[in-house]
């Protein structure tokens, strides 16, 4: 598959946007400036970016507790996102959701989710909607290796395959569910092996390689749109930060060496080398993009910080339509 330059640059930009947002969010969190818990996406950028490059606002996604990356890749604005993390009235959810529930219906983003495994059944509903209306869209559900052990994943996968829904199950296998390594939560190595049990194809993808993700998604989306049903893409990846925040609770559940090994395959570095090789983006231009995005992130933080807190009088609004 030959990717055109525009697409490559688009994927790159999404990755940089995620990395920069998350890095700055991480700093703010460590500085105690963001209430609650932040689950950061640094290291996994290739997945959201490679997949979202295929999607429009009419395609639906469900996300996880580690959801910023998905929203950014889907077009989320930094200002409204930071405002939400800060609990401001101008946030995507008016401050009612926070990091774990950040969402935007107009962008087709059905929410981060504080409940591990809750997304897949909801994505089944979104895919059902698409099929019901005969739209040519897809629904994509992102979930972790840990989440693949929740019954909700199982029920959703079976239903999606049964109804041949236009849907992708994207397992972001970063090797850990919180502090538990995959080998201590399932006896299999490839979550993709579960696909056959539902009657859908399962593919293992290098989740650090945005092009590999893009291409695997392309095939799966084509299949979905042709009415042949869902696919399971397992993207092998790694989170560079801790489960929560940047350094987290300082538990020694993984080694520095392991982290260093994975960091050698940093999805953005690898992608930028490739783009340089292909003469799509020079190292200098890449730096420029990082700087531009950082400025945009900083503007977003400023917007958020100068935004008002929600009026306590709005507490009981939005419970019912």
């Amino acid at each position, binding site marked *: 598959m030959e990717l055109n330059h525009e697409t490559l640059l688009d994927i790159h930009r999404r990755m940089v946007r995620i990395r920069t947002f998350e890095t700055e969010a991480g700093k703010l969190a460590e500085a105690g400036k963001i209430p609650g818990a932040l689950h950061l996406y640094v290291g996994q950028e290739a997945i959201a970016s490679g997949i979202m490059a295929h999607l429009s606002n009419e395609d639906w996604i469900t996300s996880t507790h580690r959801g910023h990356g998905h929203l950014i890749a889907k077009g989320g604005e930094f200002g409204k996102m930071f405002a939400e993390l800060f609990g401001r009235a101008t946030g995507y959810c008016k401050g009612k*959701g926070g990091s774990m529930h950040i969402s935007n219906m107009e962008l087709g983003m059905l*929410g981060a989710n504080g409940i591990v495994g809750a997304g897949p059944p909801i994505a089944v509903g979104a895919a059902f909607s698409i099929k019901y209306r005969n739209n040519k869209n897809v629904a994509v559900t992102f979930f972790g290796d840990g989440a693949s052990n929740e019954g*909700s994943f199982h029920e959703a996968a079976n*239903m999606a395959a049964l*109804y041949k829904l236009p849907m992708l199950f994207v397992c972001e296998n970063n090797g850990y569910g919180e502090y538990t390594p995959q080998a201590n939560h399932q006896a299999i190595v490839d979550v993709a092996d579960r696909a056959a049990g539902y009657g859908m194809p399962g593919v293992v993808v290098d989740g650090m390689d945005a092009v590999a993700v893009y291409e695997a998604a392309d095939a799966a989306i084509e299949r979905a749109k042709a009415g042949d049903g869902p696919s399971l893409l397992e993207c092998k990846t790694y989170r560079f930060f801790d489960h929560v925040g940047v350094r987290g609770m300082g538990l020694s559940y993984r080694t520095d060496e392991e982290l260093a090994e994975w960091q050698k395959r940093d999805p953005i570095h690898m992608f930028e080398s490739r783009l340089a090789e292909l003469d799509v983006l020079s190292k200098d231009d890449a730096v420029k993009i990082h700087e531009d995005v950082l400025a945009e992130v900083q503007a977003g933080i400023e917007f958020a910080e100068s935004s008002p807190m929600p009026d306590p009088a709005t507490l009981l609004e939005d419970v019912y339509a």
Partner: protein
Amino acid sequence: MADERELTYIGAVAEASRTVLLEQENAFIAGEDVAGAGGVFGSYRGILDEFGDQRIVDTPISEEGIIGLGVGAAATGLRPIVDIMFMDFMGECMDEIANQMAKMRYMFGGSASLPITVITMSGGGINMAAQHSQSLEAWICHLPGLKVVAPSTAYDVKGLIISASRDDNPVFVVLNKLSLRNRGHVPEESYTVPLGEANVVREGSDVSIVTYSRMVGESMTAADTLSENGIEAEVLDLRSLQPMDTEAIVESVKKTQRVVVVHEAVRFGGLGGEIAAQIQEDAFDYLDAPVARVGAPFSPVPFSPVLEQAYIPNAGRIVTEVNELLNAA
């Protein structure tokens, strides 16, 4: 009214479902054995033939998936009716009910609407034992974001299902198993019974019986017995449990000054506690006696008919409670 049109309680479900599918092109029904079999009790008989398998969908035995299907479809513009056969099975899908369906709109700052109707069944009396006989409405009424109705008559079944389906919020319609064959007047045309409005089904001046679902019938029987002894009970059918028509309850209590709250659910932690608490908050000075409660005792629902009969509240127990209340005052 000799020639009034009658339907069974379960027949009203089918008619309401049909009405909703005719009125709303984005409405569809999903659940276990709803399509081919027309529902295990016949709730959806005929729907498949009339509307086809895009509008009525058999699902795997996957309750969490079913509710998720409803949540996702509703958030993206459809108006699902999802069937969870027995409300005992909510245990399998409480996360999608409590953490997704009930909260999505609020967590999203109001940007999502969830016009879902969940149809399910409560209650014992047909010897289905501990896991098929529960009345767990207290679980869902405690969850901001949900609405809950519990019709006692065929008329209310149809009117409340149609109201639920037009509402832009998740509404649980909790049917009652033992009432399925009860017949009652049901107009052929489409009509609604408003959510949140109680119904005085019998006027009386001596005592109020506040109740819902099948216990309305038991309360009416009790009221007849009481009336023979010169006690005129007012019977209030709540119909909606969330929101609850506290105003109507308080108005009745202010009139009668004595009240018994009756439900089939386990007494401890049942809605009766909430209702009693509200009554004494809002009508303390009118009360001649404590608010009394009739509910199931503190055990799972037993299988054996003799035990089940001893377990489920009935007219006799309501009469006893009213008599005690009147003697105490």
